[in-house]
């Protein structure tokens, strides 16, 4: 269903590459001023979704719109800034020249110095691109993305290869842009990045959106601890206890999800004196993410102990 409040939208979009279904009837919408993070394992369809919104590919079915237009329409793309995951820029050009060139594509770009300062590369304007470190190159690419004064920024894994300090600075710059009314679509591997920046998180797996909501909502899904033990108790009985969200047997062991692990453990020990192999695992956002994608995969995932 087409919705005018979205500035970028995938509406029932399917995209196939030969036998492979990259996107399977996906719906995704971005509102003005919002920062949407797309999470998902490699090959989940994130890049394809971004590629469609940028007009790089055509959908096999469904509709794709950017500011109410076809993304292949250059008028629509004049309102966006782009930072892709891998783009080797001309090594012999200087940073200032790259920014000036990119700015020339836009109707009312930022001043080169201003864009460079926002990305923290104003001291690098006279340096050749090849002479920069990986993190500096990423920041130059970020400066190129914002130099056209875009209303919508696409940032594909923006902080890969950056040290912690540079990452923090980039986050600050992104927050500032969002505060000024810029919308952002961010894909990332770093869950703390989504946590730090996103208004809304969308988890994609197998070409579908499997979870969508605020970071808090996603975190709420993982407020649960997971109790693991070997016991003769019946799952139906345990599942009915207060505070137990879910209970199942996997490879001969019982898994209990609960928000009140202390109470449940006490009751488990009381009910089954022969209970062994007791473990209580804390799930972080990473585990939630693994969990969410695993539910769709039906592939066992190695649990991580809480540190």
């Amino acid at each position, binding site marked *: 269903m087409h919705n005018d409040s979205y500035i970028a939208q995938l509406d029932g979009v399917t995209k196939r590459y030969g036998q492979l279904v990259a996107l399977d009837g996906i719906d995704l919408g971005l509102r003005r001023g919002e920062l949407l993070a797309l999470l998902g394992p490699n090959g989940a369809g994130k890049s394809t979704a971004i590629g469609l919104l*940028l007009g*790089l590919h055509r959908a096999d079915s469904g509709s794709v719109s950017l500011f109410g237009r076809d993304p292949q329409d250059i008028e629509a793309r004049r309102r966006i800034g782009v930072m892709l995951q891998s783009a080797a820029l001309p090594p012999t050009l200087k940073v200032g020249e790259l920014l000036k*060139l990119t700015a020339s594509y*836009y109707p009312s770009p930022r001043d080169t110095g201003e864009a460079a300062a926002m990305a923290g590369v104003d001291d690098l304007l006279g340096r050749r691109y090849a002479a920069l470190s990986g993190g500096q190159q990423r920041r130059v690419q970020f400066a190129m993305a914002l130099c056209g004064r875009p209303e919508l920024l696409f940032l594909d894994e923006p902080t890969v290869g950056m040290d912690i300090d540079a990452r923090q600075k980039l986050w600050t710059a992104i927050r500032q842009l969002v505060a000024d009314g810029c919308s952002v679509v961010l894909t990332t591997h770093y869950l703390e990045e989504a946590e730090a920046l996103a208004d809304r998180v969308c988890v994609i797996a197998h070409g579908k959106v499997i979870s969508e909501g605020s970071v808090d909502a996603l975190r709420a899904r993982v407020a649960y601890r997971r109790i693991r033990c070997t016991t003769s108790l019946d799952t139906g009985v345990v599942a009915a206890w207060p505070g137990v969200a879910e209970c199942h047997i996997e490879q001969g062991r019982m898994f209990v999800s609960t928000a009140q692990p202390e109470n449940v453990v006490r009751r488990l020990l009381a009910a089954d004196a022969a209970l062994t192999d007791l473990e209580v695992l804390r799930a972080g956002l990473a585990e939630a993410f693994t969990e969410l994608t695993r539910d769709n995969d039906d592939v066992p995932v190695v649990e991580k102990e809480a540190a």
Partner: protein
Amino acid sequence: MNAIATPIAPPSMSRGRVFNAYVQEAKAECLRYLRNPGFLLPTLLFPSVFYLMFGIFLARSNGPEVPRILLAAYGVFGVMAPGLFGFGVSLALERDSGLLTLKRAMPMPPGAYLIGKMTMAMGVATVISVFLLCMALFLAHVQLSGSQIATLFVVQLLGVLPFCAMGLLIGSLIKGQGAPGLINMIYLPMAFLSGLWFPLSMLPAFIQRLAPVWPSYHLNQLALSAIGLGQGGEWGHIGVLAIYTVAFVLLAARRLRRYG
């Protein structure tokens, strides 16, 4: 967050700014290759050094017309390179490295990419043409009238275009680091087979019969005509080169639309 709700008027790009984008793209393209000795040196040195050796130092014994004939031939050899390599290699590399994808995602005006590369190729061809003309005039003392010089220059400058188109097609067919080697395997044999290194009359008959297949053969005939060694049929050669150019561009465009 209240300022966000106000719709911002869709930006419009003035004609001047669009033109500026083309200029900036061409400027950036020229700059990056001027600073790339790996591209510039072989492109400039090969035709110049070959002409110096075979067209000037070793030419005397082969007859008085040799410096004149080889001025045309090495000029053609020289202007083929920026088109084939500037277009073919860089397109093949940039399709592989993600730069072309990034430019397609950005609002770069359609055509700026190709016109930028074409400008660069023509710029390099200008330098090669002037180099060789200077050597011919001042070292080999080839007698050329002003109009002959001007005609040869224009032939070589426009003669870049079919090779830009050919480079474009090759660059749309191959990807990545293998491109320079592959293009050399087309460039060098084609130069030989169209009689740029040795006159066709010295080569076996089947190579002579095959020569009109190569665009470089036709450009060489035009260059010879420009300096008074023509055998007629100029419009035919121009027509063949034009057809090649259009065909290469159409095939490349179709291929790039399909596979990106």
